[in-house]
């Protein structure tokens, strides 16, 4: 006597990817489906190049068909829970710093994948080049500082001014890459951007100048750059010009 095709069994569905066996789900199926499952698994094992995702989807379609059939004959005494197999997506398992380090020598194919994963701009190695036309938000990200919107302890009319000073400090931290300048060290050059004040009320970058043993009262070591190029990057960036303008005027 043959097996009862409607007898139910529980099977565990797993797949092997790159040598790792991964459980997908448990299924409660009839013997007829179990037979098909076994055939499918045999086929997968026999042909490792088979498209596993497609096979599993076909398997589910068969199960769906069988489920409807059983339901029609009121033979279902259980609820079958199906879980869609997880898509085996490819991923780039690199940190941004690792990606930046490997980018210059990467193949074009890898470069395009890194561009897609991290964004082309984030992978520019030269920080000053990266920040040339960056937004203030990007300066905050580069410096790792939190963006704040209020300094409630101070008088309200000064909020905009103090927040602009904070923006300015963060901008310099970003281009200085964590290097802290000391005004008491007279051998270190401290660079700053100088501006032409235009009659329109806006500013225009003029020149980067440095100090060693003198400081202007508007100077602050937190508002000084480690190089002329760093000061120039800030001085020419439109978003930074806006901040400097706010520091001057607000």
């Amino acid at each position, binding site marked *: 006597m043959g097996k009862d095709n409607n007898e139910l069994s529980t099977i565990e569905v797993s797949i092997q990817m790159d040598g790792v066996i991964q459980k997908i789900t448990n299924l409660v199926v009839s013997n007829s489906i179990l037979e098909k499952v076994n055939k499918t698994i045999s086929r997968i094992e026999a042909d490792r190049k088979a498209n596993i995702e497609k096979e599993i989807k076909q398997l589910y379609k068969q199960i769906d068909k069988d489920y409807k059939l059983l339901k029609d004959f009121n033979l279902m005494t259980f609820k079958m829970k199906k879980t869609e197999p997880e898509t085996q997506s490819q991923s780039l398992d690199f940190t941004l710093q690792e990606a930046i380090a490997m980018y210059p020598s990467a193949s074009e194919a890898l470069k395009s994948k890194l561009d897609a994963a991290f964004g082309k701009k984030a992978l520019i190695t030269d920080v000053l080049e990266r920040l040339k036309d960056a937004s203030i938000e990007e300066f905050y990200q580069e410096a790792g*500082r*939190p963006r*704040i919107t*209020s*300094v*409630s*302890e*101070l*008088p309200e009319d*000064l909020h905009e*001014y*103090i927040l602009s*000073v*904070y923006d*300015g*400090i963060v901008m310099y931290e970003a281009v200085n890459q964590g290097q802290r300048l*000391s*005004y*008491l060290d*007279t051998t270190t050059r401290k660079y*700053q*951007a*100088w*501006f*032409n*004040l235009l*009659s329109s*009320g806006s*500013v225009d970058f*003029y020149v980067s*100048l440095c100090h060693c*043993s*003198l*400081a*202007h*009262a*508007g*100077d*602050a*070591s*937190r*508002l*000084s750059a480690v190089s002329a190029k760093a*000061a120039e990057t*800030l*001085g020419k960036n439109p978003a930074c010009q806006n901040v*400097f303008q706010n*520091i*001057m*005027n*607000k």
Partner: protein
Amino acid sequence: MKKKKFTDIKDVNECFEVAERPVVESVDQIPSDLHPVIMAFYKEMVIAESANKLKGSDQKPDWRNPNQKKWFGWLRFLSSGSVDFYVSRYDCSFAVAGDASRLAFLDESDVRHAFNIAPDVFEDFLTK
């Protein structure tokens, strides 16, 4: 009654009274390592504001006005690690990135006095 001059002011606390600004100890929203420099900005601003107020101006100096002289002090660093007042000079049509109209003095003579009553504030501003 003799009109009060900025050179009559003896310390920073008096500047806060003249400028009618509250004494603030910290700004909690800003990362704590930056509190000293932000507080120095605030104090230096209050000092300049009190000086300019005693000169009859309730408005901060205006960078958009090239005819108005904005006086700033220049400091020099001593081998002892401290700072000393060097010279005062004004800007009209150029400004360095850290300049702020709120830190400018409308009168040259007030600049040196500001440093004399609060050298620590100016030093904190530059070094913290």
